């Protein structure tokens, strides 16, 4: 077992366990922490897969932006206690069963695949910033610009929804 393999297994183990803990923790704060670790381990995967740029972006976006957003909201709403009631037992069992079925079906369906690595692969550094940048601003220029609309929408929307109402009466 090479080092890489050990890394892979270790990271995968951490990822899955942390994800599971995220799901199972009663306290949302703990969930968030586990999620953070989970994201970090995924970042490790990215490194392992030679996607250096994505590694960085991932850390920034998820660990930096998204997790902060989550935690802020949690704090804002003062939900850091174990307030969450469980769903009724039947719903939880249903949830577990359904998810397990989905997982099993997905895994068994995927296991039918016969992906074999092509021989000539692995020569170019596809994850390098330079390479990605070129692609992003050439081929994917339009989606790249277009995604700004998405972000703009989200921004405007978030503001629209969260802004406190000022009483305006026009009659």
């Amino acid at each position, binding site marked *: 077992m090479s080092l890489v393999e050990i890394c892979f297994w270790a990271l995968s183990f951490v990822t899955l366990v942390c994800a599971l803990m995220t799901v199972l923790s009663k306290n949302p704060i703990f969930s968030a922490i586990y999620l953070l670790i989970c994201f970090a381990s995924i970042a490790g995967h990215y490194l392992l897969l030679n996607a250096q740029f994505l590694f960085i972006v991932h850390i920034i976006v998820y660990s930096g932006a998204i997790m902060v957003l989550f935690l802020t909201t949690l704090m804002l709403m003062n939900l850091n206690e174990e307030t969450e009631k469980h769903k009724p037992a039947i719903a939880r069992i249903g949830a577990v069963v359904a998810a397990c079925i989905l997982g099993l079906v997905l895994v068994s*369906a995927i296991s039918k695949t016969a992906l074999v690595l092509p021989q000539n692969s692995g020569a170019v550094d596809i994850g390098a910033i330079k390479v990605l940048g070129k692609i992003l601003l050439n*081929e994917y220029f339009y*989606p790249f610009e*277009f995604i700004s*609309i998405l972000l703009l*929408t*989200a921004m405007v*929307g978030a*503001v629209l929804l969260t802004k406190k109402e000022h009483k305006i009466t026009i009659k």
Partner: protein
Amino acid sequence: MKTLTYTSFLGIFCLVAELLNLRKLLIPLVVLGLVVIGGLTYADLNAESASYFHDMLRTDKFSVSFSLLLLLITALIVSLGQNFFKEDPSKLSDYIAIIIFALCGGIAMVSFANMAMFYIGIEILSISFYILAGTNKKDVKSNEAAMKYFLMGSFASGILLMGITLIYGASGSFNLGDISLYATARNADAIFFIGIILILIGLLFKVSAAPFHFWAPDVYEGSPMLMTALMSTLGKVASFAAFYRLFSICFSISYDTYGWVLSVLIALTILIGNFSALRQESFKRILAFSGVTNAGFMLMAISSIYGKMEGPLFFYGLSYSLATIGAFAVALYVSSVTKSDKIEAFNGLAYKRPLLSALLIFAMFSIAGIPPFAGFFAKYFLFAEALKSGHFWLVLFAIVNSIISVYYYFKVVFALFAKSEQTFEETPSPVYVAVALVAVALLIIAGVAPGLFMPF
């Protein structure tokens, strides 16, 4: 291409307009802009198909005609906004901007040539809708609608995205052309088919097909009425166009994988939509379930791979949207008077507001598929083509169900003539009347001369 760009700029203009203090003129300007963009787009209708930006977008007859349809829908709904946002003018530009952005998403969805554009388009549309569903902030129902929509929508996006990923994994590309080459040329890998199924499921969610339809009735009911109209028209048409575009280009060769499932789901969708609508009291909810049923009908376009379905699908989308907008325009007036979206709210409208009632009746007839309205031809074209693809039992089933559906469409008509104390003394806003009039007029024109609206 230019449609999308210009529309994006129009959306940004809306945001800027707030700064320029153009609030009063905003809606006319936007409608004007949409019309201009429509005109520019129309010029491309008969142009050769072309691809832009490294094959991110492809304009062809399909994309142009659906873009026009989306523009028309948006223009009508934005016009309705003139009155709808009266009480909340400070946020007018935000609302309009988001609607226009949703339109951008929709246009991307009808003209994509790459999964990236497809995905981003869907997400823009969806996120806009999440926001719009929740815009009535004080109303718990609106909050709930937004939440339900958001949770389920993002979940479904995940499924869809998983599908795209698996397709990419199998084919090594996000380009539709490459994917279809992969599907045609080689013995595709198992994950390719899983990808197809997951994309299918994701899109079935977006078009609110059973068993992924649960969000639709609740969201439609909870959202502000204008937004309901938008979602059930713009959202549905764009999703179907994307659905059709993706599947007809890439996946129809793999029909055997999903064909049977799709047929069963179509039947299920029609059935559930129809039967659920029967005993509803809320106008919005009836239209929501009717939307589910109609989604079932339109899905036949996806599952009929041997027919030329662009035309029927377009026509169906057109007639369905126009009828829905027409109906909502009247309902907006009624709910503004009665503060209720129940069917009873319409009681007695026919005696006080005969014109509006007639328009509503026509709209309902059209959705129910009664000639001479466009809805009839829509159903006819769609079913006839589906029959050509051998969907004998499915069409028969659909027909039987459209008989049942008449009941709930007519429930509205009955209400119009029922006795009531409501006097409807408020004069309806001319905008509502005009929009309903335009929509119904188009329905009749399209019903009398369907050829005019069959660009294919």
